[in-house]
């Protein structure tokens, strides 16, 4: 049983029940394969960095779970078929996980997700002022002159 993190992006126009149906289906696939869901976090609507399938915003969901590789294949297959899912990304975190780590992860996940969401909302209101210095170095260095 491997530990995975997954992000899926749903179309903004999709209804709430359609979204929760897909999420529930994902849970069911994991449970059926004797896996465990550590956490499911809804990051909410975000502006996409580039349009995906003509959509400018997407609904982000973040899952952490423990499952077998075949279960992951099944989840991704369902995502690929469904039009409502714009993108998904599955990342393997650990090859195996002990029972204590699992319980610790489940109780930690609420804290972690809360902290992450808090940072996210703070970040949206800020600009990115560092970019000017960084871009200057980048442009100047490309010309081959001394940069400082």
């Amino acid at each position: 049983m491997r530990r995975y993190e997954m992000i899926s992006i749903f179309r903004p126009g999709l209804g709430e029940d359609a979204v929760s149906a897909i999420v529930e289906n994902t849970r069911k696939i994991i449970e059926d394969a004797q896996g465990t869901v550590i956490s499911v976090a809804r990051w909410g609507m975000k502006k996409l960095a580039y349009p995906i399938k003509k959509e400018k915003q997407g609904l982000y969901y973040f899952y952490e779970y423990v499952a077998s590789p075949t279960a992951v294949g099944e989840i991704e297959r369902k995502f690929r078929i469904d039009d409502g899912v714009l993108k998904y990304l599955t990342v393997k975190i650990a090859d195996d996980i002990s029972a204590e780590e699992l319980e610790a992860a489940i109780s930690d996940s609420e804290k972690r997700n809360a902290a992450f969401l808090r940072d996210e909302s703070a970040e949206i209101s800020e600009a990115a002022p560092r970019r000017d210095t960084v871009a200057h170095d980048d442009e100047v260095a490309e010309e081959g002159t001394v940069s400082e």
Partner: protein
Amino acid sequence: MQGKQPKKLFTRKKVCRFCTDKDLTINYKDAKTLAGFVSERGKIIPRRIIGTCASHQRQLSEAVKRARHIALLPYAGNPQE
């Protein structure tokens, strides 16, 4: 081939930000930190400019590519118009 520029000006002593500051982790979900290592156009900044060590630069590069895949960072940003 111009070897006219003295080498020392490029090889300043720069320490890797991630090696010195243990709290700073490379996470593909953290677009805010990653954006500091990406140019205005969205390109990954070379290691000799920023001064990261090789292994952290590899992790950074992989994280940026994952973040681009889930649209947290752009593949190609527009310069200010």
